[in-house]
């Protein structure tokens, strides 16, 4: 109702008066809008070099069109498939190993009554979220290198050392674990907030009906935070082909290249380091398009299944 009323009043105001009242608002918007056009939309148009043979001297517009040649080259390149597979594998590991951790921590943390310990755990687990991947990579090398703490402990128990950072297979686990360490605290806060909004009388009713604690957690608590869990899951599934740059770039090294080369680092090395702008743009564009399709479809599927979407 309110909306209709305000619309009505706007119509009655003469255009001159409207402008006199609002020109300052338009003036404020001017800079951000120009900014968005210059720094977000202009590069989108620049993306057409994916379909061109980019020539530095001719520039984006005057370089000759070559159709899908860059894409064909990418699909025929082993490095591209390696980067794509690694992106999927690393993200899938984050999902399978990393996704349930904060949920489990939140559910059990919510059950304990000692608020001091609850707060302490939350504070400590959230801290690594504020450390850069450069710092985390530095810390991880100190812990997992052959002369690092973990191998020191392993050697003391009489076992032989493990090449955490030079065997591609084991390196993946280091990557996943560091991801849990860095980001579990963030999701934990979201789940704890969702939990504190749940209705405790349902749990009490289940208790009276003779449900054990684990039964209550599984059948009362978790179903209540299911909307939050599904939104978090949708967001992560939608991002399964896209990968942040800093994390794989800093965590990887030349010995584990076969596992740590991902789309973002591949685009960087082919595009910015080797200067093949057109080809690298094509790879990036492929990733963006698949990403959008995934987000839209995951969103649609979840809505069909009766869950909330993110859009």
């Amino acid at each position, binding site marked *: 109702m309110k*909306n209709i009323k*305000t619309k009505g009043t706007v119509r009655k105001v003469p255009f001159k008066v409207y402008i006199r009242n*609002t020109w300052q*608002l338009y003036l*404020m*918007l001017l800079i*951000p*809008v120009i900014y968005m056009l210059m*720094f*977000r*939309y202009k*590069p*989108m148009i*620049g993306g057409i070099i994916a379909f061109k043979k980019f020539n530095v001297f001719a520039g984006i517009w005057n370089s000759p069109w070559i159709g899908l040649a860059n894409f064909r080259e990418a699909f025929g390149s082993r490095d591209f498939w390696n980067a794509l597979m690694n992106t999927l594998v690393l993200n899938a590991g984050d999902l399978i190993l990393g996704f349930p951790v904060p949920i489990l921590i939140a559910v*059990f*943390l919510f*059950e*304990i*009554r000692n608020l001091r*310990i609850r707060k302490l*755990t939350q*504070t400590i*687990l959230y*801290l690594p979220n*504020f450390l*850069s991947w*450069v*710092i985390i*990579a*530095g*810390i*991880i090398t*100190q*812990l997992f290198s052959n002369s690092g*703490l973990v191998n*020191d402990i392993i050697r003391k128990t009489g076992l032989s050392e493990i090449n955490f950072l*030079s065997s591609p297979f084991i390196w993946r686990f280091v990557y996943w674990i560091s991801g849990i*360490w860095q980001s579990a605290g*963030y999701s934990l*806060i*979201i789940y704890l907030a*969702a939990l504190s909004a749940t209705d405790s009388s349902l749990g*009490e009713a289940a*208790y009276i009906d003779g449900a054990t*604690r684990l039964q209550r957690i599984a059948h009362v608590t978790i179903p209540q935070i299911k909307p939050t869990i599904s*939104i978090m899951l949708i967001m992560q599934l939608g991002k399964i082909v896209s990968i942040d*740059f*800093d994390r794989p*770039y*800093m965590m990887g090294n030349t010995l584990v290249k076969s596992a740590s080369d991902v789309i973002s680092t591949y685009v*960087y090395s082919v*595009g*910015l380091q080797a200067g093949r*702008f057109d080809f*690298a743009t094509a790879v*990036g*564009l492929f990733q*963006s398009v698949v990403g*959008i399709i995934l987000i839209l479809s995951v969103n649609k599927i979840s809505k069909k299944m009766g869950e*909330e979407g993110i859009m």
Partner: protein
Amino acid sequence: MGELKSKADRRFQIFWNTFFIVISIVAIIPIVRVFSMSLSSKDAILAGKVFLYPVQFTAEAYVRSFQSGSFLSSFIYSVFLMLGSTVVCVVMTVLAAYPLSKKKLKGGTIIMTLFVLTMYLDPGIIPKYLNVRDLKLIDTFWALIIPEALSAYNMIIMCTAFRGLDSSLYEAAKIDGCNEIQTLFRVALPLVYPTLATLALFYAVGRWNRLSDVLYYVNSSKLYTVQMVLKQLIESVKISQEEGIASQLVADNIKSASIVISMTPMVIAYPFIQKYFTKGIMLGAVKG
């Protein structure tokens, strides 16, 4: 609940309290260990004596980190870059969010859509790089501020905060003769202060920690942020790891001291950040 007194419950509480204490300790060990290594002597570290507390306590590593001019100057530069970048980002966010929070604004919906679409349509790094290069920003201070100056996501959070204000406040300001700019500064901004502070912190932490754009847009070492300098230090260690060289190019205590120095701003600000960030996550992330 009668359960409070039951033995099973007490056992449950003891088990999980212990469990979470252990988890917390495990999660904090890496950070504690970096601290203690930074305060230990090189020999003690090489001999593998340092675990959770400094051995042969010395602040030598810090002195040496600061003496190597590049680290100190890049630290000071990074602080200024962080502050400058945060100011620019916050100003841009408010400039966009305040007008768009007015439902009556003609064309507002179209402009809002223009902003929202940027969250999903990513041109990728190469076109962005070429754009920055066309604008002659490569290898300048501004390349580390302008390309990330406005995030549509944060703008929407800010916009929601403005919309949450009581509309009668705006009307009162109007009757008192405030124009839109005066209303923004005298009425709206003081009231959305918590959201503003949260976003400022988001931007500041993001700028401090981000490495990628320094790699993309900057070549000269005088524009290197702390993260970039630290990256070079760590990489020199990585190389020695790969080649199996026992003697490292940079001693572990100096590397640890550098890590500690680069995380200081975040760790000092953490208690204060935590309060706002916890709210901040809730502002944007969750509908359910």
